[in-house]
Each structure stands twice: as C-alpha cells, then as structure tokens.
C-alpha cells in the first residue's frame, strides 16, 4: 500500500527549505491578513471580492464620492484609490470594524440611527468613515469642519449626517465624563 505521507526526515540535511511565501501583511478590523495575489489590486476589491467584507462600497473609479472610504492608520482613505502594495503593515478599519467586539455600536453609529441619517443606505458606510476620520482629528468639529466631508449622497442625507455628528460628539463627551 502506497504511503500517503512521506517518511519524516531522519537527518537535518534531508530538509529542503520551502521558501517563505511572500505576501502583504496587513491588519483589518484587528485581524491579521496576508495578501498573496496581485499587489496592484485596489484594497476595495480585496475587501469585497476576497474577504467578502461588503460594507465598503464601490462609488466610482476615482474614489470621488466617498462610498469606498476606510481608515488606513486612522486616516480616511479611498479603498479603490490605494493598491494592496502600499498597505504592508498598515492597520485598516472598515465600517464592519466600528462597533466593538461585543457588538456595541460606536456613538457615531448610534447617532446615525437616532438621527435617521440614512437614505438608501448605500453611501452611509462612507459617511461613517469620513466622520470617524473627522472626529479623530477634531474632537468638537464646527459646522465649517463638517463642511469638509468629501462624501456625496443622492438621497440627500447631508443635513441629518450633520446632526448625527453633533449628537455623537455630545454622546462621546458624556461618555468621557462617566
């Protein structure tokens, strides 16, 4: 009967070193991943096609519109505009990673629900990521700061997003005091 497994090497010299499989190591929502495919592939398709993390949306080829925003080392970045080759060692957060591991929503997510800052909902993840980036930079953003959000929304959720950001700021202040 044929052996299914090769016999264990008996001498050190019998071991043929297997080359380390090279790839791009990155962290997404706290988990480690290694991408071994095309380094030119934009992050968006890695998230959607490979990992099936579908919260990050396709908005357009140029990333304008903001539906595909993710946080790369805390900074809002267009996922279609950045190839995997630039992401080695980076920490990426997508909309799926905003809530904590127990499923408790981030105050910003809760504020979007409370203010009904949702139209069709397709661009909402992008608004959340842009707003996270804003709050990472500015704890108490003014209306002018909020005006700098790059996102587009055909359903017209902008005024409700503005309210949601303000509500989140208030909730986070409360949370910090408690």
């Amino acid at each position, binding site marked *: 009967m044929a052996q299914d497994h090769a016999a264990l090497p008996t001498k050190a010299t019998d071991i043929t070193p297997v080359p380390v499989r090279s790839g791009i190591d990155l962290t997404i929502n706290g988990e480690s991943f290694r991408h071994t495919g*095309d380094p030119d*592939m*934009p992050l968006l*398709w890695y998230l*959607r*096609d490979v990992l*099936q*993390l*579908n*919260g*990050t*949306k*396709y*908005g*357009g*080829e*140029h990333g*304008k*519109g903001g*539906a595909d925003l993710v946080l790369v080392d805390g900074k809002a970045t267009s996922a279609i505009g950045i190839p995997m080759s630039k992401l080695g060692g980076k920490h990426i957060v*997508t*909309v*799926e990673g*905003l*809530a904590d591991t127990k499923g408790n*929503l981030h105050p910003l*997510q809760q504020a*979007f*629900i*409370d203010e*009904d800052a*949702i*139209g*069709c*909902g*397709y*661009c*909402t*993840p992008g608004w*959340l990521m842009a707003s996270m980036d804003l709050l990472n930079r500015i704890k108490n953003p003014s*209306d002018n700061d*909020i*005006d*700098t*959000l*790059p*996102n*587009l*929304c*055909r*359903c*017209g*959720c*902008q*005024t*409700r*997003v*503005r*309210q949601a950001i303000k509500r989140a700021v208030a909730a986070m202040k409360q949370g910090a005091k408690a």
Partner: protein
Amino acid sequence: MSGTVRLSRRRFLQVMAGTAGALIVGIGAADASTPPVPSDMLGDALSELGAYVRVDADGSVLIGARDPETGTGVATSLTRIIADEMDADWQRVRVIPLGLGVADDNGKPRWLYGQQVGGTGNSIPRAWRDLRSAGALARRLLLQAAAQQLGVAAERLRTEKGTVIAPDGRRLSYGSLAAAAAKITPTPQPIVLKAPDHYSLIGQSAGDVDAREIVTGQTPYALDQHFGDMVVAVLSHCPWPDGELTGLDSSAALAIKGVMKVVELKPDPKLPPGETVIAPAVAVIAKTTWAALQGRRALKLAWKPGASGTESSAALEQQATGLLNSDAAPTTRVRDDGDIDKAKRKAARRVEAVYYQPWLAHATAEPMNCLVRLDKTSATLYVPTQSPRQAWTVVQRLTGLAPDQIDIRVPRVGGGYGRRLDHDYVAEAVLLAKEVDKPLQLFWPRDEDLSHDFYRSGCVHKLNAIVDAKRNIIAWNQRMASASALTGRGVSSDHLWTSEVGANQLPAGLVPNYRSDWFSVASSLPRGPHRGMPDVANAFVVGSFLDEIAHGLKEDPLLTHLRLIGEPRLIPLQGGGAIDTARLANVLKLVTDRISWKDWLHSVNGLGIACWYMDGAYVAHAIEVSMQGEKLTIDRVVCAVDVGRVINPMGLEGQVAGATLDALSTALNLAITVKDGKVQQSNWKDYPLASMAQLPRSVEVITVPGEGDPAGASFLAMPTAAPALANAVFRVSAVRVRRLPLMKELLRLL
C-alpha cells in the same frame, strides 16, 4: 387549516397555519375561481401565498415588505401599518423584504403580492387600501382564539402590544395564541379597521428598520450578493445607442490573469427601451471584479456612430426653441380653458419668459448590477430593481422558463429615482450568464452608469401671462418642448406628453384662461422615468414665472401667490379628485411665517418661495440665500408638506429633507450634455452632486397634521425647492436665472 376572507372581487385574505404553531395571514390577488392553497404546501417563514404577517409561538412577528426599498422608507412604514392594525409589539417585529410573488397560472404569471413597485410615490397609498386588513384579520383571529381560551366574548377583550387583555386583567400573549388562531376558519364578516384614535404606531416616529445593519455594513445590496463559483462581467457600451462595433481586439484583455471570455452584446431593436441591452456592448467575463475591470481597460474597441452621431445639446435646444417660436400646431394641446384671445382685450400687463432645463441622469449610488444563476429549470436573480415584475418579464422572455421558475430577489436598493423601472442591465446579465456555465454578476462601473442612462430630457418652456388692471392673472399660456420619456414604449403618440407635463398642474384651474401645449422634440438619446417627473421641470418654470409676474407688479410674491390661489374651495381635477386651495395656501403660509417673510423686502439676504400640488399632497418651500462675491450660501430652507395622515413622522421628515437636498443639488450643479451624439459626463467630477459645503446646513420641515388617506411623499419636496432657490437668488443678486443648472448660469450673468 386555512381559510379566506374576500376583500374585493380580486383580492382576499388568506389564513394559514405555519410550522411550529405559527399564524400566517396573507393577501392573495386572484380570480374567484382559484381555490385556496392548502396549508401543507406552505414552506417555512413565507409562503407563495403572499403571507405578510406571521406570528410565531415565541411572540415574534415577521412582516414581509412587498415593495422594493430604495431608500424611501417603505420597509418601515408599510410594516408599521400592518403592525399597528394588529397591535403587534414593534420591538418584536422583524421585517424581511419579499421577493417577487409570482405563480404559474397555466403558463401565465399570476402576481401574488400586487404591483410591487417602489420609489414611485405610490407604496403608502396602495398599502393604506389593502395592507391594514391583513393586520386587522390577524388581530381578529388572535382575539377569537383568546376568547375561546378565556371563556370571554371576543368583543370584551382588548389588545395592546402583542397581548390580549381580558376585562379581569388576565393577559395572553399573541405567541401563545398563534397556533390556536391559525386553526380558526375566518368567518366572512367584513374586516373592521381601527378607529384612528386607537393608532399606536401610525403617526409615531420610527427609524429605518435596516438602520443597525446599515451602520454596521451588514445590509446586503444586490452588488454584495454572491453565489458560489460566480464570475463577474463588466462591459463597455458603444457611445451611441444606435451605433455599431467596427473593431474588436480582445487579445490583451484575454491575456490578463482571471479573464475568461469577451462577449459582444447587441440591443434587440424590436423590444422597448428598458427591456433590452441599452447600446451595443462588449463585456469582459472574469473570475474577479478586479480582473474584469483590467480586462475592460485592455479592450481595443472601435465604434461607429449611427444617425444619433450628429446630436448635440445645442442642436436639441435649437430644435425645441424652433418649435416653440413657430406657428406650428403643438404635438398635443394638453389643456385649453377659457379663451386666451378674448383675455387679451383686458390686458393691463403682459409677461413673457423662456426657461431652459438640461438633460439629467439618475446617478444612483449603487450602480447598475445584477446577479443571475441559470439552469435548465430555474433562474435565480438578485436585482436592484424598483419593479421586480418588469425584471421578471425581461428574464422570462430571454429564458423561456415557466412563471414560477423565475425567482427574483430584491434586497435593499441603493437608490432608484426611476432608473430601476428599466431593466436593460437584467437583460445583459441573463444574456451573459448564458455564455458561461456559471452564476454571473454583471457590474457597471460608474462611467458606464452615467454615460448610458435613460435620461430625463432637457426641455424649453415659453410662457406668456396676461394680468388685468386688478392685478389678477387672467391668462396663462404655457408652451413646452421636450423629448418624451415614453417614446418607443408602447404609448400612443397622443399620450407622449404625459411624461412631460401635467394636465392638472398649477396654475391650471386657478387661471380662467389657461392653455398648455406640448411639442415633441426628436432625439435618439435613451429616455425614461425620472424622480418627480413631470412636476420637477414644470414647477421650476411655474414657480419662477409667478415670481417674475410679482416682480413686474412690484409686489410681494406672497401676495401674488395668495391672490392666485384665492378663496378656500375645491378645484376639480381632470380625471377626478380636486385641489383644496385652503391646504395649498396653508403650506405657503406655514413656510412664510417660519422664515419671517415680512422681512422679505428689506432683508439683505434673498428670500424666495414656491408651492405645488402633486397627487393629493401639498408642498411649499421658503428659502433664504446670501451672496459674497460669487459665493452663494443657502442660509435657510423651510419646507411644509401636507400629505394627509402621516404614517411615520421621522420617515416623512427624512424624505422631505432628502428630496429638498436632491432637488437643490440638481438645480445648482447638474447637467448631462451631448456632443456628436456622445454623452460627455462619465464621473462625479463631470456630474457633481452638491457637496456638504454647498448645501444648506439644515432643512426645517413642517408637517401639517391630517386625517385624510395618506399620499405618497418620496419626491413631494422636489418640485418647489429649485424655484424657491431661484427666486431667492433673484432677490439677492437681481439675476433672474432662467436656465439650469443655476450656478453656471448665475456666474455667467453676474
């Protein structure tokens, strides 16, 4: 056990026992001869019977949302209508989107859930007519079951939040009654609906039922769906819908890793637009989206224009103005009240203006896509559609499958605005899936989406009004030229106007001598339904022109409006119904009070108003703007709506604010232009939806409490936003914008 209660000749309620002691109530739509389907045919949660309500033994309630959710809130509001009528505990209600309900009726489709159309402003009015009864019957059966168990007459029991309560305080949960209720054969006594003072959910605010899933990225849109072993197709369309492919070199595309096949597609000229491929196309089928996109980029394509190769925006506009300025008879005289010529004798003042509005795209957030799995006996599709029935028609024609072998699933849709009433992309997906023996997802990149649309036609309006010595508008002559959205869609030539202009639109009925003419513009550009059509384009013109008349009279435009609207009365509409002038005046009064209209004359900012009537609902906007140099700021927006009974105030407010911003964004910035027959816009830079900074920081929404049957509201706030804006801009800048998009024209004229 199962039974039926007839609602009308063609509709009946169906009661069934589900698995594990559940009660299911659905609405069937069928001929009287159709026997009730036995309960053992029922599958799990939702059957083929159109089961809208399922009460489970654990007390949870599952409600099916029949109309596609495109962001108009129907998944929330429709289910709350049912839940209220049955006194369900909203905290225990789960909502699931229903796919297309279709049965095989001797080879013909029988539609199980009715129309199933979303985003056309009609879901709530339709639901109000039939969905309440499903909830009421469920409640009646639960009460009857409780009466048996408690030994108390059903009339003496009451219900509250998923519980039946006896006069002595004993309580039975719906869950504990579901199995017994499902065994009751409903008696044919008429369904009694709740009195409005007993509503517990209707009239109360609720957030979107999908909100938590949306903010956590868990809501699957069609583009997020997968089948195992699925392949992805992207395509390049010919720039001209009537053009043809003259050269194709796919070698470089096929050399890309993962690319499997390159396929040519052609429209079927015998089919109406929206049921076939929108333009000749070459598709790249690949194992991944990334490979398909690279393959598309590597295609070497040569296209030849058809007759449309000579079209341009300028030529289309010339054609329109030529028609309006000629003595030619209109394509259709839409309305002709009184005698315009006689009115001329009483003229103290004549006003004339010409307005130009551009072609528009739909620009849905989620681009066109479709996932399809085909085999010899079935087709399963995830379709982002506003009309699953129409999608079914396209699939059936291309596959020849039996009606119930086609399973159309409709997850939440990333925006519709009328684009998804057409199903060219479904035809493409099915044709491509036939080329490979695998499930296939078709995906349109943004440039395809913007440059191959069923556009809203541009239009030119020429208006003449006559004002008498008492400042009354005694004659209104409105001439409009546009390319009908209905051309080629099986509509007779004398009805092509109906997509372009309304026979009842204001100020018809308010001006004694009123004429509305429509002239047909010829164009090869694909056209189709568009959000708020035809009201949006016409309200801009009417609202602007009224302001021009007021300016000519040197009076407050609010006075001009109120004089036109006149005494409280009902103005009969052609085709039935009436406009209540008191409700129209009221929304105008509400917005002007809120925005401090009395400052109108002296304000350094510009104030503008407009009002409109649409399908049983009333709307007015008051807008305040300021300008610093060339920078226009929209400082304040107030919108009042009267839709009759409000189902979900927060949902309504969101729709009104959203539609206002969409209308402002469109009026400020957007235009599709054509040169040599080619659409020139292909990305968000060319078709710039307004940014956060360009839009107002809030929209103040005033809702008139009403008791009449609810009207649709998803685009109610669209028509008046643009004219109120243009009128405000006129006050602050003295520039009358008669051509959209507004910003471009304003900067040209400043």
